[in-house]
């Protein structure tokens, strides 16, 4: 027969272009602006940490698939690269290589592959790695290089705005006095502040959000709700006592709220599936973040908040069903 055989399959016969590798590529592209800002701020350190982290995460996934699970390596889907990038975004830019290696192994090995790989992990792998490092290497993980464009690996280190706030309040100072020591809101917005590698600039992160919304990779539900929750809740406290609580704008622009809301809480695997669920999840993340920041021991709470809410996702998915057609009571 000259004509090759026809293919038969159940409908639909066409498929959207947006497949897993495309989605992952889109997320990576969306993270580039934030990466550029931190390269500008921290110089080579940012490149070094991000590069190593990606390398270690991808390597860990490859090795685990190849030698432990004995199956086809799955790194081509791009999720390990994202985990690597997100892990790097959550650590200081002067982290030694062996800590990055440990973080990567924990992220990919414990956080993802031990549950069966992409799609099966209950917790955000990058955050699992980050929190592990934070608890294991508290000193290295909280000595933040200052945001000055230095092209050397050993810059001066200092605290993050949230750190200054927490320590200052503990020492009995008031918020307005502490604010004098800090950069302006514009600086926060464009990323001239101390902190983790990727959380510098709200502006750059928002560009990433815009891109992901445009590509329809994520919906607005989680990022907008989470940021709004943080804003509203800190706003209430600020309204009650502006000397003890910082302004909502300060809370939204500093620390990991933007990074968390845009890139960590929106992780497909560890966030709820329905819009209703997403909103509940994001409110939970926001509330927990604020509670930890204002009343907890740590100056920053986004990672913990998201990890705690990750644990509730199966419950949310079971109880918050989408609106069914034709089943109104």
């Amino acid at each position, binding site marked *: 027969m000259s004509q090759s*055989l*026809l*293919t*038969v*399959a*159940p409908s639909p016969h066409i498929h959207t272009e947006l497949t897993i590798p495309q989605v992952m590529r889109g997320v990576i592209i969306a993270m580039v602006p934030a990466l550029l800002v931190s390269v500008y701020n921290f110089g080579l350190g940012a490149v070094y940490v991000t590069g190593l982290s990606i390398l270690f995460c991808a390597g860990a996934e490859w090795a685990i698939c190849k030698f432990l699970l004995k199956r086809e390596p799955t790194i081509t889907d791009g999720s390990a690269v994202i985990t690597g990038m997100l892990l790097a975004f959550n650590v200081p830019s002067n982290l030694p290589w062996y800590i990055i290696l440990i973080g990567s192994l924990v992220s990919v090995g414990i956080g993802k592959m031990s549950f069966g790989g992409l799609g099966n992990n209950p917790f955000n792998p990058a955050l699992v790695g980050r929190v592990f490092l934070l608890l294991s290497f508290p000193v290295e993980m909280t000595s933040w290089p200052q945001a000055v464009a230095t092209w050397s690996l050993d810059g001066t280190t200092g605290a993050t705005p949230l750190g200054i706030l927490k320590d200052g309040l503990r020492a009995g100072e008031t918020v307005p006095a502490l604010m004098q020591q800090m950069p302006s809101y514009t600086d926060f917005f464009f990323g001239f502040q101390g902190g983790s590698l990727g959380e510098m600039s709200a502006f750059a992160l928002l560009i990433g959000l815009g891109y992901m919304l445009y590509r329809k990779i994520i919906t607005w539900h989680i990022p907008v709700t989470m940021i709004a929750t943080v804003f509203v809740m800190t706003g209430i406290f600020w309204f009650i006592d502006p000397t003890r609580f910082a302004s909502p704008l300060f809370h939204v622009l500093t620390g990991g709220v933007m990074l968390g809301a845009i890139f960590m809480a929106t992780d497909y695997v560890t966030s709820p599936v329905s819009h209703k669920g997403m909103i509940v999840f994001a409110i939970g993340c926001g509330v927990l973040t604020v509670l930890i920041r204002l009343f907890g021991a740590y100056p920053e709470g986004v990672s913990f908040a998201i990890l705690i809410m990750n644990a509730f996702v199966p419950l949310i998915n079971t109880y918050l069903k989408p609106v069914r057609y034709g089943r109104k009571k």
Partner: protein
Amino acid sequence: MSATVLYTVLSLTGIGLLAAVVLYYVSKKFQVTEDERIARVEAVLPNTNCGGCGQPGCHAFAEAVVKSGDLSALHCPVGGNPVMKQVAEVLGVKAVEKDPYIAVVRCSGSFEYRKKTNVYDGAPSCAIAAQLYSGDTGCAYGCLGMGDCVVACDFEAMYMDEKTGLPVIIEDKCTACNACVKSCPKDILELWPKGKKNQRIYVACLNEEKGSTARKECAVACSGCAKCAEACRYEAITIDHNLATIDPDKCKLCAECIDTCDVRNIVATNFSPEKLQQASEHRQKREERERRKREEEKAQATANNNPEPTV
């Protein structure tokens, strides 16, 4: 210091005692009395929970036999007669012997015999393909080759032969649990009496098309030519919807039908070639005898009808 130790020990002991009393009370109050024979029956069962007996699992089977106290309707195909004998001992009733069964594949349309007419590109499941259309070869009755049966088998008693595209049953491992039979959307798999010396004879085809159409679809399809049925001395083979089917209850495993099939699609397992050869010769001799007898009868009849004129 000593007071702290004392209080600690006292309060923990108190909690311990309280918990013990509560637990004791609860265990007495909510105790479920179960016939202890159920546990004993369960202990002799294979505990594979395959569902081959028709019950949801081994425990349910144990409950069912203890409740009915009669072994004629319930049988564990996995354990077979030895296990059922033990069950009978536990219950103190008479064991009912059942012939062991085994699954057989009633399709021999391998890649070689059954050409593909299209390529299936849906989810790799026979059930889904069968719902979509009649299959990726011309034959609408044949194996779809995606191995739903292999997935269904709990005993690793099946595998897909990559050369033929058909499932193969490993005789020693098959427990006749019926799981593969239920999983096959084309009903290719069938439970068959395991037979004396593991010998079985069956037609490995289910094609009900007319002979010419069937052969176009598959080179070894049963065309319903009925040669095998004619050769059978025990009337074990029937032709229905252009398809020969052997009744295992009537089949005496004489194997005389095997070489009547022009596409050799009557499967005889565990027969030696000599035995098949003998069976074939035996049949030919018998047919020769019958033919001669018929001729004689005919001649006789002709002679009787036209009596020679007597002079």
